[in-house]
């Protein structure tokens, strides 16, 4: 036995990369939704299960907020191009399914240059959409949970494989949004984390030399 292992403080309950007992199936409705391409998919089984996804709520004729959010998402997509459609997906769900049919979503996506690999727009039965919105974005406050306009302004990031959920305001800087998306990345090995830590230390040292303390990113 390697003596170093004596210092092992724990045995991980789950092996890296292997799927966890996820609560996704319990939380996320498996409702049939229609995509902007007109396909019908099961929301949990075919869209989220085992994947890392970025989810936001929007609607097609939303004037200001949704456009800002969608353009942020487009920037995120550009930054994470290599992963998009492979192990990272972007889902935009309409909060007004009764107005937004697949064609409307498609034209919205075209208008925002959002026809990109791994990025899908969804509409569906209003009851299902409402349930999804409540399950993914609830704030446990009667006012906020019933006000539709409140839910166009948060990105939900879920890694269903590792059971990791987080969220970020799309109005934060691109750097911060990317950082939050990375929080849901599959866990790294200790060696990789130590390497990241060393890189961060170099960055801090450089900033301290250059700016006296830590700089504005």
């Amino acid at each position, binding site marked *: 036995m390697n*003596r*170093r292992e004596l210092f092992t403080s724990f045995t991980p*309950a789950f092996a890296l990369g292997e799927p966890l007992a996820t609560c996704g199936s319990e939380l996320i409705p498996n409702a049939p939704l229609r995509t902007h391409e007109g396909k019908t998919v099961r929301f949990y089984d075919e869209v989220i299960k085992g994947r890392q996804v970025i989810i936001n709520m929007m609607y097609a004729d939303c004037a200001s907020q949704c456009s800002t959010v969608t353009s942020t998402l487009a920037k995120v997509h550009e930054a994470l191009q290599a992963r998009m459609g492979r192990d990272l997906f972007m889902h935009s769900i309409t909060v007004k399914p009764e107005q937004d049919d697949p064609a409307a979503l498609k034209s919205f996506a075209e208008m925002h240059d959002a026809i990109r690999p791994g990025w899908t727009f969804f509409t569906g039965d209003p009851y299902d959409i409402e349930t999804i919105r409540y399950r993914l*974005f609830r704030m446990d406050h009667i006012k906020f949970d019933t006000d539709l306009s409140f839910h166009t*302004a948060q990105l939900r990031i879920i890694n269903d494989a590792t059971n990791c959920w987080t969220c970020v*305001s799309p109005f934060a800087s691109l750097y911060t949004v990317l950082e939050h998306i990375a929080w849901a990345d599959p866990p790294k090995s200790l060696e990789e984390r*130590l390497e990241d*830590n060393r890189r961060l230390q170099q960055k801090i040292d450089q900033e301290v030399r250059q700016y006296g*303390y830590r700089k*504005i990113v």
Partner: protein
Amino acid sequence: MSDVTAPRKRNRTRTRQDHVVTEPGVTRRTFVKAGVAVGAAAVLTSRKSTVQAQVPPPPPAEPVLCGTTPPVSPPTTPFLDVLSAPSAAVPQALFPFPTLAANTGAGEAARANHQRWLEFFPNVFYQMDARPSLHTFHSNLLPSYMWTFNNAYPAPTPLNFYGVPSLVRFKNNLPVATASFGRNEITVHLHNGHTASESDGFAGDFFGTGLFKDNHYANAYAGIDAFGGIGDPNEAMHTFWFHDHRAAFTANNNYLGLNGMYIVYDETDPGHELPIGDSLQLPNYYSVTDIPLILTDKRFCAAANGRNELFQVVGAGAPGGDKWVVNGKIQPRMTVRRRKYRFRILNTGPAKTWNLTLVKPDGTQGTMTVVAVDANFLEHPFNLSSGPLTVFVASRYDVIIDFSAFPAGSKLYLREAAAQNVGVAASGLPPGLAIENVVMRFDVVNREFWFPPDTPPVPATLCTLPVLPPPDAFFQWDFTLVNGVFLINGLPFDANRIDHVVLQGTTEEWTLANDVAAGNWTHPVHIHFEEGRILSRRVRVSQNPDVFQNVPLTFDELGRRDVYPLPPQHRVVMRQQFRDFLGRYLIHCHNMNHEDDFMMVRWDIVDSIEELSTKRREIDRQRRLAGVRPQYEGGLV
């Protein structure tokens, strides 16, 4: 011997190599040293058994969560368990020895160098291991899966002295992957330590499993530069607490148990009751006559798999509890002697505000003498005998209760205004008191000969408040909520963006303005770094946004504070100094669910006018880019 090691070996071979977190940089030599440090007994036995003594208990299995609908917690018989103070943390040697620069080679999390390291070279060292463990909240309940420091909930309490700097090594041994709703990255904040930024637990400075971080606590008063030595003794604070501050997961990690108390003694509050020096002779023997009451609310799942797991929903914030927990126990009892006791009441949240009263055997309200608020002594003690003691999240109230007025055999109760779920009937309660409101019971007995005698009456004057310098600048923090996002001065939290810069050594007068439209929340706003003083409080009283009415300050707002309760439409004007250290600090709502929804803002302390104006110019440039009003139009400095 072989019986013990064999299953362990089998377990190891089953584990894939990359899952095993090995403490980096630990050689066999330091390992043997650590073994020696454990004690002579370990040295005398064979090396193999030393090895056995070093192996920590295996972590508990990950929890199986009980769905998304909040359950009703199982019934618990009141007063079955005995309340005890968290154990005192034991100082220990640290290997590898702490260093000025982050020892990344040994696995220390990246940070800037410790400030004032040689000036306050640490004399006392603690290690706090964040790890999963089981805790039983009540004898009627099965153990619950938690994340705790050193396998204890609440964490062991480091007892420190002003003038004796300490260093706490926070080690992250949380699981690589978890089924709980916690996040296995931590950054620990000592609330409200006068701490250098790199040890302050900045929300963005979290570190992952397998790494550790040395937090350097100077245990000095604020005003080191101005007063020399260990600073201005009038800035003394005594009742601190430390907790995880991981951005976006603070509520979850604290609900799972990553918090504890931290006490610093000085001459006026020396940790003993003897009439020596300037001692105020308050009840002061830790865990004997000076007891932390660490309050939180929890909700439990029905028994399954040999556990009563804490209710939690992955992806959501911390749920509201239906069991009132004090020092990790539900409705405990405590035997008290007929003398004065000091209770250090701390609300660890995550979100609940407590309204506490002391109920006497005849059902009327008893007197609690409040001596300290948010770790700071009040100038004069306040006898609270009508109305509740309102404790917002993260606030601390040190109260003295004198049990000598009650005959042996009497029972007093700590009452919380909101009702919990008990599920078991109780008899013999004072008239008008429902068991659902009872937090804990005090059983009065006569003082035994060996128990410390009563302390003298609480002095009429406890401290001299420090001189409050005139402000060098004014600033306003606007808390709003737009489209479901908490904004401060128009922007959401971004750990990588500075929202205000102050110059070291100056004083600023800040207005905290709560314009959160829909909420009826009182936000307990916490400002890191130094204690502030509330100057005035006003409330908007009409539709006209500019009409305000003054609100008289309550007794607990007359002294120094670090948590500023901010009800809707209120304006709190407070003044704070920025001395001794530099770096990145935070203001946030200490309702941890709001904090995780980014009701938080970063501000920096710099030490040169050039840097101040450069950074302020940069802030305004970024604000213009983001489409919000620049802050420093009146002048950069």
